[in-house]
C-alpha cells in the first residue's frame, strides 16, 4: 500500500504547467546537440599559475579578470550526508551540488535547465523514451563515468533503504518499473539501460514534460557503481533501534563520497565544518577556487559576529541586526532580483554587496475547518494586514502574499503583474489595511459578542518573526471577539499534531519542488486536506464534513488541472483558469490566509565575485564561476581553523 497511498505523479505532478518549465524544456531540447559537449579542456590556461602571489590587476575597476586560488568560506547549518539519494535538506544540498553532477543542471539555480553530464538528449516520438549521450567525464577516483554507473545510481535512488527520494524516480518522473502485490518496487526492474558505455536510455511509463527538470535534481546524480561495494539492500539493515547503516555505506556517505562534480570531497567534521577542493580533471570549466569551506553555525548572533570578523566571504544578516536604510544603490533585474550594496556595518565599517532573490515559496496561516467556523476565519483575513506585517516584522525583507501561488509562477504572460491585478480586483479582505470593523461585523453577524468570544489557539513553528506577527494579530482580533492563544512548537511536534488533526490554526509554508502553480495548489485540493490520511498536505479538512460551494469549486478546478496536462495553449489556458478558481475558492472559505512569499538575501564582501543565483535557490548553484581577489585580504590565505588540514581524504 505504500505507493498507492502516497501522492502519485497523477495527483501532484503531471499537470505541471508553469510556463517557465515548458519554455525551458523546449529550449533545452533545442540546445541539446551543441551545448554541453565542449567546455572540457580550454579553461585550464588561466588556471593554476596565478596563485596567491599575483600582484597585478591594480586599479582596473571595470571588468576584473577572474583570478584563481583561495578558499570560498560560507556558513552552513548542520549537514547530514553527502549521499545524493539520502540528502533531502538544503544544508547537505550545498555540498552535494558541488561534489556530484547529474545529467542536467539548473545553471546558477535558475528555473531553466541545461545539459550537464549529458552532451546530447533525444526524445522518442511517443515522448516516453529519452536517450542521453554522456560527456567524457571522470569520477574523482579517476574512473570514467559510464552509462552503467547511471543504471546503478538510478537503481539506488529507487531501491536503497537510505534513499529519501525514491518517489522522485518511481512516481514523479515515473520511469517504467514493476511492482509487487503490495505496490513495492521490484529490484532491478527499472527501465533504464546502458546501450553502450556512453549511451543511456530511460523509458517512462507515460509521457511527462518535466522530465529534464526532474533529472537536474541532485538526487539523480551519478556515483561510481563500485563506490559503496555492497549490495544496495545491505546499505541499511535491521529495524527500530537495531537498524544500522553498513560501515561501507557510512564510509561513502560521510567520509569519502565520490562524484564527478567540479569539487572533490576533502573532509567533514560533523557539527563543525566541511571542505571540498577543486577537481582538476573536471570535464567542464574547472573552478577558479581552490577550496570551499562550510562552517557550521546555527545561532543568528553567532553567524553575524563570525561574519563581522570576516571569517566568511558570504553571509546573512539576521533581521534584528538588519537596517533597511543601509540598503543602497539598488536596481532590479528582469528576474525581479534586487542588486545593490549594504552598509557600512557598525562592527567592522565594511560596505558589502547585497542581493535579494525572490523565492518560489509561500508562508501561510491555516485553519482546521472542523474546529474554526467560517466567520472566524474571515475575521482573521479581514484583520490581517500582510503589508504592514511584512514591513514591521520583516523590515520589508519578505513580500506580502495574497495568493498561494507565488508571483514567479503565477499564470499568464506577465506573472507578477497578473498577480497584482488579480489581487487588486478581487481580494475581498482589504489590501494593505487591517479591516478590524469588518472583522467585528462578520463575528457579530454570526452571533459572537464581547460576552461570547470565540477562543482558539494558533500554533506557530519555532520562529521569532511568526511570534511577533501572532502577537500583532491577537491584539487586532481582540476587538473582533476572538480570544487567541499563541503557542509555538518545533516542527517535530507541529506536523505530528497536524496529522492527527490536533491543531486549530497553525503556520507553515511551502517551498517549490518544481516551479509551477499546481505544486502549490495541491495544498488546497480538498481531498489533500483530510487529517489522518497519508496524503494530507494541509491539516484543514476542507469540506470534509459537508462540502461547501467553494470546496466543490476547488475540487472541480483541481480535476480540470489534472485533465489538462499537456503543453498546448488550450491546456495551459484551462489550467490558468483553474488556478484562479482555486485561489478564489480559498479566498471565499479562508482555508489558508497567505501571509508572505519568501526571499533569500545574500551579503558578500566585495573581493568575492559570484554570479547571482536564481529562484531555484542558492543550494543548486555550482561554484565553478566564483572567484576571489587574491591580494585584497589576509583572510585569503588564512586556512579556516579546523582540526588538521591533513585529516581529510
Amino acid at each position, binding site marked *: 500500500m505504500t505507493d498507492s497511498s502516497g501522492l502519485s505523479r497523477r495527483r501532484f505532478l503531471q499537470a505541471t504547467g508553469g510556463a517557465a518549465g515548458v519554455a525551458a524544456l523546449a529550449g533545452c531540447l533545442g540546445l541539446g546537440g551543441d551545448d554541453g559537449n565542449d567546455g572540457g579542456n580550454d579553461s585550464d590556461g588561466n588556471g593554476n599559475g596565478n596563485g596567491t602571489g599575483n600582484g597585478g590587476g591594480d586599479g582596473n575597476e571595470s571588468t576584473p579578470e577572474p583570478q584563481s586560488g583561495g578558499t570560498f568560506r560560507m556558513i552552513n547549518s548542520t*549537514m547530514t550526508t553527502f549521499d545524493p539519494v539520502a540528502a533531502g535538506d538544503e544544508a547537505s544540498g550545498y555540498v552535494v551540488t558541488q561534489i556530484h553532477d547529474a545529467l542536467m543542471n539548473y545553471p546558477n539555480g535558475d528555473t531553466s535547465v541545461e545539459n550537464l553530464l549529458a552532451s546530447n538528449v533525444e526524445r522518442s516520438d511517443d515522448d516516453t523514451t529519452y536517450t542521453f549521450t554522456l560527456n567524457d567525464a571522470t569520477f574523482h577516483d579517476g574512473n570514467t563515468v559510464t552509462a552503467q554507473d547511471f543504471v546503478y545510481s538510478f537503481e539506488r535512488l529507487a531501491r536503497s533503504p537510505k534513499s529519501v527520494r525514491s518517489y522522485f524516480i518511481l512516481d514523479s518522473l515515473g520511469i517504467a518499473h514493476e511492482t509487487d502485490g503490495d505496490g513495492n518496487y521490484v529490484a532491478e526492474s527499472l527501465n533504464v539501460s546502458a546501450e553502450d558505455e556512453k549511451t543511456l536510455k530511460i523509458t517512462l511509463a507515460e509521457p511527462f514534460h518535466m522530465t529534464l527538470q526532474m533529472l537536474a535534481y541532485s538526487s539523480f546524480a551519478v556515483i561510481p557503481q563500485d563506490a559503496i561495494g555492497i549490495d544496495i539492500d545491505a546499505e541499511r539493515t535491521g529495524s*527500530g533501534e537495531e537498524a544500522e547503516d553498513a560501515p561501507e555505506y557510512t564510509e561513502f556517505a*560521510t567520509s569519502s563520497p565520490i562524484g564527478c562534480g567540479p569539487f572533490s570531497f576533502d573532509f567533514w567534521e560533523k557539527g563543525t565544518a566541511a571542505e571540498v577542493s577543486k577537481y582538476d580533471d573536471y570535464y567542464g570549466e574547472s573552478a577558479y577556487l581552490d577550496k570551499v569551506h562550510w562552517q557550521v553555525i546555527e545561532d543568528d548572533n553567532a553567524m553575524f559576529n563570525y561574519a563581522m570578523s570576516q571569517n566568511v566571504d558570504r553571509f546573512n544578516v539576521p533581521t534584528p541586526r538588519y537596517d533597511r536604510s543601509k540598503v543602497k544603490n539598488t536596481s532590479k533585474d528582469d528576474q525581479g532580483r534586487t542588486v545593490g550594496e549594504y552598509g557600512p556595518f557598525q562592527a*567592522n*565599517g565594511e560596505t558589502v554587496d547585497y542581493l535579494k532573490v525572490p523565492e518560489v515559496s509561500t508562508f501561510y496561516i491555516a485553519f482546521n475547518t472542523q474546529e474554526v467556523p467560517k466567520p472566524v476565519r474571515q475575521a482573521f483575513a479581514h484583520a490581517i494586514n500582510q503589508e504592514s506585517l511584512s514591513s514591521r516584522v520583516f523590515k520589508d525583507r519578505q513580500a506580502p502574499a495574497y495568493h498561494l501561488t507565488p508571483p514567479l509562477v503565477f499564470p499568464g504572460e506577465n506573472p507578477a503583474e497578473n498577480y497584482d491585478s488579480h489581487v487588486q480586483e478581487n481580494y475581498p479582505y482589504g489590501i494593505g489595511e487591517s479591516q478590524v470593523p469588518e472583522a467585528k461585523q462578520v463575528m457579530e453577524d454570526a452571533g459572537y459578542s464581547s460576552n461570547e468570544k470565540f477562543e482558539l489557539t494558533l500554533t506557530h513553528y519555532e520562529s521569532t518573526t511568526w511570534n511577533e506577527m501572532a502577537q500583532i494579530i491577537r491584539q487586532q482580533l481582540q476587538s473582533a471577539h476572538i480570544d487567541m492563544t499563541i503557542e509555538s512548537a*518545533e516542527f*517535530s511536534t507541529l506536523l505530528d499534531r497536524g496529522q492527527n488533526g490536533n491543531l486549530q490554526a497553525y503556520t507553515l509554508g511551502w517551498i517549490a519542488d518544481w516551479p509551477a502553480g499546481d505544486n502549490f495548489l495541491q495544498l488546497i485540493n480538498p481531498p489533500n486536506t483530510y487529517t489522518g490520511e497519508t496524503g494530507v498536505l494541509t491539516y484543514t479538512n476542507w469540506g470534509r464534513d459537508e462540502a461547501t460551494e467553494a470546496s466543490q469549486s476547488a475540487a472541480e478546478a483541481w480535476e480540470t488541472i489534472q485533465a489538462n496536462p499537456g503543453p498546448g495553449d488550450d491546456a495551459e489556458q484551462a489550467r490558468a483558469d483553474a488556478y484562479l478558481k482555486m485561489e478564489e475558492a480559498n479566498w471565499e472559505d479562508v482555508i489558508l490566509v497567505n501571509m508572505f512569499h519568501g526571499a533569500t538575501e545574500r551579503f558578500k564582501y566585495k573581493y568575492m565575485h559570484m554570479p547571482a543565483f536564481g529562484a531555484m535557490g542558492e543550494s543548486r548553484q555550482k561554484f565553478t564561476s566564483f572567484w576571489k581577489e587574491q591580494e585584497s585580504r589576509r583572510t585569503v590565505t588564512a586556512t579556516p581553523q579546523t582540526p588538521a588540514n591533513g585529516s581529510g581524504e
Partner: protein
Amino acid sequence: MSRWSYFARRLVLAIPVLLFSMSLTFIILRMGPLDPVSAIVGTNNDPGYRRAVARSIGIIDAQGNPIPLWRQYVAFMTDLLTFDLGQAWVVNRGSDVTELIATRAPRTIWLGFWSVLVALLVGIPLGFYAGLRPNTLSDYSASFGGIVWRAMPNFWLAIIISSFLVASNQLTGGAFNWSTWIVDTKVITAPPLEDLTDPENLAVAIKQILPPALVLGSSSMGNEMRVGRTAVLETVNSNYVETARAKGVPERIIVWKHIFRNALIPLVPIITAEAFILIGGSVIVEEIFAINGLGKLFIDAAFQGDLPLAGSLIYVFVLLTLIINILQDFLYTLIDPRIGYD
C-alpha cells in the same frame, strides 16, 4: 559502617535511579508529541518523503508497518545498558552516536574546565579577601561586583561580550583588536584542540575559550564569592578561632589552617553543583559562541525527537551526575571527619 561499604551501598542505590531516568527519557521522547520524521522533513511535508525518511531511520519496516513501541523500548534499554549507543536518527542522521559524542565532548569539557577554573580562581580568593576585611571599602566593592556578576544572565552577557570582542577594533578606534591580540584567534566557533602540547596551539585554545568560559562561569563566580565571604565571616567569629588567637597562634596559621579549611565546607556542594549547571548552562553559551559541543547537540536531539542520540546523552549525563553526587558525599567525609556514614 566502613567508608567502603557506605560507598558500595551508594553505588547499588544508584541503579534504580538510572533505570528510572532512562525509562522516563524513552517515554518523553517516543510517547510524547515529538516526531523525528517531521523534524527531518520540515516545512515541505510530502507524504512520499515522510515515508522514505521513516523507513530510513527504521521506525517503520520495509513493508511500511510501524515497529511496536514495546519492542523499541526493550531495544533502547538493552542497547544503552550494554553501551551500544547506536546511530542518530535526526542530527547527522545515521552517524554513530559514540562518534558524535567523541568529536563534541572535548570542546564542552574544555569549556567546562575553564569556566570552573575561572570561577574558582577569581571567586573564592575574592570572597575570602572580602570576608577577612568585612565592612571595608574593598569588601563592599568585591561584594557588589559579586552581585553584579551573579545577576547578569548568560544569554545577555554572551551576546554583549561576543559582539564587543568582534567589534573591538572598530570601537577602540584601532587601539585594541581582540582577534589579533597576543595570538590570532576567532571570537566565534570552537577553539582548535589538537596537539595542545605545542605552546602556541595551547595559547590559541585558551585565549579562544576564555570569553565563553567567563560567561559560563560568571554566575558561579559571583556565587562562590558570596558564599566564600559568608563562610569566612562565620568561621572568623567562631569559638575555636578565638581560642587559637588567645593561645597566640600566629595569624597566618589561623587563616590557613583554621579559617580557610573550615570555610571550604559549604563551598564543596556549590562547586559540585556547578558541574551540573555547566551541562545545562553550556547550551546557551555554546549556541551564541557557535561552539557546537555536547550542550547544543543534546538540545537539538531532544527537540527533534532523536531518541538514540538524546537517550545516549541523557544516559551519559545521568551517569555523570550520579558519579559526581557520590563523589561529593565522599569528599565531605574526607574534609570533615565528623560526618558519618549512616
